[in-house]
């Protein structure tokens, strides 16, 4: 294989993988703390894409600037969904057995509602932001690098580093980690557990708000776009290790680069089969993902 094409593919894979990882961050964070597998993850991304689109379409806000709107709005939505819909389940489970399955089903219901409310509200048509300016490709030697994608990929790494650092070293972050490890003990140490849950859920969604704004220049919004990203995020997060922030980025990069390189040798559909195969293989060797603890 031509080394130029190959390095081009690796660069593409890194960019795409970074974006996958960034989008998956929230899913991993929420699972890590709440033990809730958020099936509606992609739907939240879909909503933030729409939000960014409407900011641009109605108010003329640049998609990158629209993050000022999407991040707090998605935080609020996440906070709301957790405190109103999911927390009754957790409250119920405090006395009974923990049943992760119910959480999955519940968020599956959230997914159905969000996707179809979007369909009702925005219609089935594709919508997309059109940047008024032109971002030329950055030339990495002979390889053109798409700037919006680069921005999103770098943001993913920055956010991951930031969130990890914050979780590790801040007082609030420590409280979140403590809650993740032992909900009751955290409550007995004076931590407001429902609030930590709501904030964490909000934070996970706020990260999606950011990425909704960052990818809206190149990813169109449709009511069904969420599922594609949602499933990809699951694969990325499980591969990286559920609950691990660096794992999410690493999982994304592994999948991104693997797909990009593989699809230069075989067709994209075979590459999809191979990347699923890789996923299974990694799990068989490391049953809790690359960075996960068994």
């Amino acid at each position: 294989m031509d080394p130029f094409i190959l390095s081009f593919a690796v660069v593409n894979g890194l960019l795409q993988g970074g974006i996958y990882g960034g989008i998956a961050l929230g899913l991993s964070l929420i699972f890590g703390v709440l033990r809730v597998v958020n099936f509606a993850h992609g739907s939240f991304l879909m909503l933030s894409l729409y939000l960014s689109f409407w900011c641009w379409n109605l108010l003329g806000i640049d998609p990158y600037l629209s993050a000022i709107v999407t991040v707090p709005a998605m935080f609020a939505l996440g906070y709301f969904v957790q405190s109103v819909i999911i927390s009754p389940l957790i409250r119920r489970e405090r006395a009974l057995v923990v049943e992760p399955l119910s959480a999955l089903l519940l968020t599956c219901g959230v997914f159905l509602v969000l996707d179809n409310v979007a369909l009702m509200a925005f219609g089935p048509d594709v919508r997309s932001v059109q940047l008024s300016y032109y971002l030329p490709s950055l030339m990495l030697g002979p390889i053109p690098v798409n700037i919006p994608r680069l921005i999103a990929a770098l943001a993913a790494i920055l956010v991951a580093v930031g969130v990890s650092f914050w979780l590790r070293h801040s007082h609030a972050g420590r409280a979140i980690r403590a809650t993740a490890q032992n909900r009751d003990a955290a409550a007995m140490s004076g931590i407001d557990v429902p609030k930590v849950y709501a904030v964490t859920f909000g934070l996970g969604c706020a990260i999606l708000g950011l990425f909704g704004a960052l990818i809206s220049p190149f990813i169109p919004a449709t009511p069904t776009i969420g599922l594609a990203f949602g499933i990809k995020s699951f694969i990325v997060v499980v591969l990286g290790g559920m609950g691990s922030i660096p794992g999410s980025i690493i999982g994304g990069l592994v999948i991104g680069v693997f797909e990009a390189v593989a699809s230069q040798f075989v067709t994209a559909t075979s590459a999809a089969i191979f990347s699923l195969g890789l996923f299974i293989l990694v799990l068989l060797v490391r049953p809790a993902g690359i960075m996960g603890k068994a």
Partner: protein
Amino acid sequence: MYKPALKIAGLTSGYGDIRVLRGVDLELKPGTIVALIGANGAGKTTLLRTISGLVKADSGFSELYGESIHGLAPHRVVQAGFVQSPEGKQLFADMTILENLMVGAHSKRAYERRNETLEEVYELFPILAERRYQRASTLSGGQQQMVAVGRALMALPKVLALDEPSLGLAPIMVDRLFESIAKIRERNLSILIIEQNVFQVLEMADYGYVLENGQISLSGTGAELLGNSHLRATYLGL
């Protein structure tokens, strides 16, 4: 006016349809150690969890120095000054000792004084200072118990509750732990302690209660209880 450190009256609670507590009355004088005794499954842990707000009370009330803590969310109860070291230690397994202790100082009041309190906890349990960067999950059972007690102290409790602190400890560790508890009392704290190690705890306690069938069936000073024939038969196996 005299105000008990902790006063509980008519407390009823349970899980689902099952009523575990059926009107518990209990009082703790400031600066005393009170022991709570009862069979396996009598509801001692449930009592602590109910006071802490982790289990919802159906009726009754609980007060801390005259202030009601009844029906508060768990973190508010901690802020008010009732802090427990839970049964089975329940540490944050993947965090270091230091982090575990710092989580204990979560509430605002405690956070402001965290450094001084930390020094005091280290003084009480020097081994914790030595191992402060070690992960909690890799500690021995006795050390884990010290972390759990230390974490509770970090919250600056007015009343400290200890749920079976000696469970699963070798006799040598039990002794060391009880020495530490006696030292904590000297800091003018009130302590509510649940123990199966009835003999040892009643020797140390100022007062004791026996929980049976979801109610207090017997109470008295440590010496009185040790002399009680029912208690001796049931809980000391004599």
